[in-house]
């Protein structure tokens, strides 16, 4: 069928970047192994050949330096995309992210713009252990001044990336390794989907109801969207109809869609691959309590990493990162309990 081209999420991201680079010569990419290697997770696959080393720049291992350089290039009118290879490495660059990228626009009273995208890989479930498996989006969502984008599908990945590049504010774009459709990751059919060839944007702040349902609301992002959809299918067989909401952006957050869904279903579970406490699951549960307290038939539930680092060993990791089974169990308990 026309327009029914299938792409993986990884290819959708690379295509979005390529199209914006063609459109706008202020856009360039910096990061470790993004050139000849094409990015460890393929986000810049093929771009070096297309755009050359001036616009697809391999950097030394100097996260503070090159992310700070992206900030400086952005304030001088360029539109850099910097790749932080794994979000876990943010600590080597956090000052530039936190005190500069996020704050310069505000501190300048709106006079200086920092139009840049910081893209980074998140997520576990493949035994990459404590320093290469984190999600951490809540930590950045807690930081005023950064838009937080977390696609879960090829279609969303492309539209949100183009939107991010065109945004005049700093955007962090988190791609989960498990949703990319990489040949060397655990196969995931949901990581391939229809992606239009022409450029398009998806506005920030619009959650996507990936599945409608009436019995409970599942609020989630990234790979947990896929697991929640799988869980919803199982639940449907038991007669439980779960609504699965992919938040897509945490900042801005689509409070309305969240609250309306809970008002409809009266029950909510947050499924979160980030650490449980002081993070996304708390924020979402709090919002529901603030805006839909009287509609709740049960306390909000939170399924998240139980406040330990991600352990290496497979059974340990599977115990801490939410699985389809545990999502099903939580939903069942919520509805029946």
């Amino acid at each position, binding site marked *: 069928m026309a327009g029914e081209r299938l792409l993986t999420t990884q290819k959708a991201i690379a295509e979005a970047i390529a199209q914006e680079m063609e459109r706008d010569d202020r856009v*360039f990419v910096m990061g470790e192994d993004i050139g000849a290697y094409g990015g460890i997770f393929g986000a810049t696959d093929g771009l070096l050949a297309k755009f050359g080393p*001036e616009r697809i720049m391999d*950097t*030394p291992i*100097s996260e*503070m*330096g*090159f*992310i*700070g*350089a*992206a*900030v*400086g*290039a*952005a*304030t*001088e*009118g*360029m539109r*850099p995309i910097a790749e932080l290879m794994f979000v876990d490495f943010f600590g080597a660059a956090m*000052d*530039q992210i936190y*005190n*500069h990228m996020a704050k*310069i*626009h*505000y*501190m*300048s*009273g*709106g*006079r*200086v*713009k*920092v*139009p840049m995208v910081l893209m980074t890989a998140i997520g576990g479930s493949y035994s990459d252990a404590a320093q290469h498996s984190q999600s951490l989006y809540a930590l950045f969502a807690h930081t*005023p*001044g950064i*838009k937080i984008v977390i696609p879960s599908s090829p279609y969303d990945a492309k539209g949100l990336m183009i939107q991010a590049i065109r*945004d*005049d*504010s700093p955007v962090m774009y988190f791609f989960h390794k498990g949703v990319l459709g990489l040949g060397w990751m655990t196969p995931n059919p949901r990581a391939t989907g229809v992606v239009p060839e022409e450029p398009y944007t998806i506005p920030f702040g619009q959650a996507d109801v990936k599945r409608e349902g009436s019995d409970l609301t599942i609020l989630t992002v990234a790979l947990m969207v896929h697991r929640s959809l799988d869980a919803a299918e199982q639940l449907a067989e038991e007669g439980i109809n779960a609504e699965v909401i992919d938040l897509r952006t945490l900042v801005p957050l689509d409070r309305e869609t969240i609250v309306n869904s809970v008002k409809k279903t009266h029950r909510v579970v947050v499924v979160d691959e980030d650490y449980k406490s002081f993070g996304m699951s708390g924020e979402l549960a709090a919002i529901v309590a603030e805006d839909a307290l009287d509609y709740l038939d049960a306390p909000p539930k939170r399924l998240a990493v139980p406040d330990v680092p991600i352990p290496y060993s497979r059974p340990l990791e599977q115990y801490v990162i939410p699985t389809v089974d545990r999502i099903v169990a939580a939903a069942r308990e919520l509805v029946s309990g």
Partner: protein
Amino acid sequence: MGLSKETLLNLYDTMVKIRTFEERVGEMYYEGKLPAFDIAAGPIPGEMHLYSGQEAVATGVCANLQPDDPVTSTHRAHGHLIAKGEDLKKMMAEIFGKETGLSHGKGGHMHLFDPNLHFGCGGIVGGGIPQAVGAALAIKKRGEDRVAVSFFGDGAANIGAFHESLNLASIWRLPVVFVVEDNLYAISVPKSASTAVRSNAERGAAYGIPAVQVDGQDVLAVYEAAKEAIDRARRGEGPSLIEAVCYRFRGHFEGDPELYLAKGEKDKWKERDPINILGSQLKAQGLLTDAEAEAIQAKMTDLVAEAEAFARESPYPAPEEALEHLFA
């Protein structure tokens, strides 16, 4: 070097302007705070780091810059911004937290930004260095002959961002000049206790970057070294480092008890006041009379007074404006 009279007098003017601004800010800072010092009180609340004593560095470097040459600075930024040509009124208003300030009061003394002058600074040591590298990268990508300058202190040269930035600037051969203002201290910690080499100029070699140490109280020495480095950058020959040895005449910040200074140390340095050094040279060469010097001082006093009046009379931003300007 044979600088023109105009250039020389401009250098003198700028130094006097900075000093006059800083000393007046230093006076006003204590308004409303005493007798029992309350940092949150008075027309200028918060921390205050003044530049008095180091004027030759900002002045000598910025005299070689155009308005569109990007500059990143530090917590001690007033001197750099004045030397870059900022309007004192908007600066002062920002320091007062007023609506008419550079950032409508959101930034304050440590966060002065002006996109027209391509100027930014901040309160995190080392924060500006990578940003200057990025500005230089933007320049190089566009094939312009602008040059970026990053000012920072001797203390900042020991933070990781310094290392990463110099290496990046070198491998990418960027038009950027790193200016280390070695005022001998990072707050109370003397350079000798923090830095494994005598001069950060010795560190240039670790990045293949030409580096010199100059007398930072001598504006002509700074001017000359800066000119060489900036010209090199404009010619596309890559980055340079300048370490200017200088001294701050006030505490690290206002209220600093300065217990860490050796007895008489500051007085000795005050004998090498950069304004007097240039003033004496100009007078010796017949380029400046005492009366002219007084007139310059009077002019600067007026300018600062005007800025003060402007700042005092300007309104505060409306409280709800706190919610604006989060995103572009």
